[in-house]
């Protein structure tokens, strides 16, 4: 049977990466330094990390449960603050909304600070198609934009690139003198983007949180690029998934340190910014107009699923990616979608459809490392199981596996059947071991000469005879 296109290319890419030892080393090195920082920060900052997680999970679950009310509250407050709120049912509507804003305001250049939601709706390509030059301003995002790649990781987009590779890339694309010095490369990016910040008419951001009580967008970052993106251009557009909602400003007391700790091992990121509208009268600067685009794009279908709803409480810290042994091995690009790793494998089939994307839910050994590190206690590995069950229920899973397990259930749980077929299994495992395709050879387990139940019967027989 022909494999679905995405599944086939996922298999191909993941196999290539799994065999790439230098890639593995690079990622392990980056994640090791992340692990050290995170462990130290959990211990030094929180009296009990476990309790902090429990509280965070409760607050965020409550918020997501009350999603429709809180969204309406957010909208009312935001409008009061002079923000124009646009609702988008899917990626196409969200793209169209941004393009309309760009056209109506004669935008020729736009700066964007790091936002996974804009990756999800593939905004850059859309803006370029109407002739708007778009600059990624986060250093990691700039690197992957210049390399014409997707972000490798939702927090550290250029995790997979070495200093030398970035130096070579900057030399080629920006004309920077060839160097592998991180400081010089960062400086080069700073100089390169200064001009863009000041000449762009449109600043695009995502939102780490939406504060319902205040109608505010919260951005958390280290570089200052989100600050500049929301300070210099005439127009600010924030694209936010509807699940980003938090009820109260006070909730940030916990969520900002929680996100920083799990995201990068910091107590707080360098800039945590609360924005509730365009420039007010009496303020010297700031955008004249601000828009918030509230994006559904499949989230309401997740909301409809009792078991899966909890996945909307994700704060996109990336901890589950770092912890996942599969992600560590195959990396972020193998998934070919905005959200890789465990959380991506949970939500992507719902956001983009099971037939094309259910393979992500199967690409996990269910080790549970993701659930262990999640700061809002999402049981990711159990949700992967839910997705697999969903695929089976919806009959989108492969016919081969469905028939296989149907037969399995008819035979395998029953000793008599199993015993009758034992010689065939034995022979089958020998033959399969010889005839298996190359990647499976050596991985076909060999059925033992005597099963345990046979050994037991032998023993019983011997004992009664003696």
């Amino acid at each position, binding site marked *: 049977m022909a494999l679905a296109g995405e599944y086939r290319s996922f298999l191909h890419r993941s*196999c290539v990466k799994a065999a790439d030892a230098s890639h*593995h080393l690079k990622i392990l090195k980056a994640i090791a330094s992340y692990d050290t920082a995170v462990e130290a920060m959990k211990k030094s900052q929180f009296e009990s990390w476990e309790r902090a997680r429990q509280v965070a999970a409760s607050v965020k679950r409550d918020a997501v449960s009350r999603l429709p009310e809180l969204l309406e509250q957010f909208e009312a407050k935001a409008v009061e603050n002079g923000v124009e709120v646009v609702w988008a049912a899917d990626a196409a509507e969200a793209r169209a909304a941004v393009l309309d804003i760009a056209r109506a305001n004669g935008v020729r250049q736009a700066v964007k600070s790091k936002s996974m939601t804009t990756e999800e709706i593939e905004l850059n390509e859309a803006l370029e198609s109407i002739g708007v030059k778009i600059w990624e301003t986060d250093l990691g995002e700039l690197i992957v934009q210049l390399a014409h790649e997707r972000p490798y990781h939702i927090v550290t987009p250029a995790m997979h690139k070495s200093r030398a590779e970035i130096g070579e890339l900057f030399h080629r694309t920006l004309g920077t003198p060839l160097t592998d010095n991180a400081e010089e490369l960062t400086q080069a990016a700073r100089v390169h983007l200064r001009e863009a910040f000041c000449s762009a008419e449109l600043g695009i951001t995502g939102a780490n949180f939406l504060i319902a009580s205040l109608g505010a967008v919260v951005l958390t970052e280290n570089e200052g690029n989100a600050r500049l993106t929301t300070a210099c251009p005439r127009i600010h557009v924030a694209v936010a998934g509807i699940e980003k909602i938090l009820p109260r400003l006070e909730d940030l007391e916990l969520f900002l340190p929680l996100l920083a700790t799990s995201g990068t091992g910091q107590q707080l990121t360098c800039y945590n910014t609360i924005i509730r509208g365009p420039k007010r009268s009496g303020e010297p600067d700031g955008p004249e107009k601000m828009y918030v685009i509230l994006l559904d794009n499949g989230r309401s279908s997740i909301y409809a699923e009792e078991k899966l709803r909890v996945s909307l409480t994700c704060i996109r810290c990336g901890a589950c990616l770092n912890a996942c042994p599969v992600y560590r091995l195959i990396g972020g690009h193998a998934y070919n979608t905005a959200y890789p790793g465990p959380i991506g494998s949970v939500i992507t089939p719902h956001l983009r459809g099971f037939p094309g994307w259910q393979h992500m839910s199967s690409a*996990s050994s269910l080790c549970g490392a993701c659930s262990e590190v999640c700061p809002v206690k999402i049981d990711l590995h159990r949700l992967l199981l839910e997705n*697999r069950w969903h695929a089976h229920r919806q009959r989108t899973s492969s016919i081969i596996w469905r028939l296989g*397990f149907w037969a399995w259930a008819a035979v395998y749980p*029953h000793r008599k059947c199993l015993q009758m077929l034992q010689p065939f299994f034995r022979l089958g495992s020998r033959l399969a071991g010889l005839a298996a395709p190359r990647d499976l050879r050596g991985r076909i387990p060999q059925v033992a000469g005597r099963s345990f139940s046979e050994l037991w019967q032998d023993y019983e027989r011997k004992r009664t005879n003696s």
Partner: protein
Amino acid sequence: MEQIFFLFQVLHLLRLPKSGKQHLSTGALLDEKQVTLFIPCLVDQLYPEIGVALCNVLSAIGWSVNYTPEHTCCGQPAFNAGHRPEAKQAAAAFVAAFPGSGEIVTVSGSCTAMVRVYYEELFQEDARLPEVSRFVGRLAEFSEFIHRHDLYHKIQGVQRGRVGFHNSCHSFRELHIEREPLRILRCLDGFELIESANKQICCGFGGVFYLKYSTISSAMGGSRLQYFLDAGADTVVANDPGCIMQMRQEAASRKLNIRIYHLVEFLAQAMGLGCELNLSKRSAG
């Protein structure tokens, strides 16, 4: 192909009558403590020596063992693949194979987790739920069993080698077994336990994942073994037949110089219990 499936189904419908000799026990003395074995299908089919070691160890520390050959598989492979109706079918047959109320012990944290964490969910809104719940409470993983009955002092013996311990992900994260197996290992003498190798890293087995994504799975297994080798281990002791299958296959195909045992095999060797099923050797205690 289809004929084979048809044959399977017919066999399933016929369900051969149950053997009268289902409660084989070891003819223990009446005052002896008894426990029932759950031999996971991987052990039954691939590594019967682990089951033998379990019997011999339990018997040597003064417990008599019952074995009901009717049980085969807890249903985890189907459950993990998302095939819940099939998993439930298997689970129902599995529960039915363990009548009575005595304790059940097994050598797989993963199977124990399947039963303990997911069985009741699987039988939600099913008349069999009370029966299933009772069953769930009876099952213990080997090191849980040792801990519950405080049998550490009965474990004595000598082993060799530089040993790393591999705790299975499900035993660690679903059953919260962490210190018990190490405490059991420390009851033995003569070998070196390399603590730094014991880091909780997945071996990449993962049930159907092993076959569906065999390249990824294999690479994960390889890097887990490499971690042991880098830490200086020449022996891996693990507590799950799934991990053992994965690591043995990987060690063999990569020609790595490392031995992989189940905890009970390692104990049986140390206690000099031999490879043959032998339930007559009893400790004095």
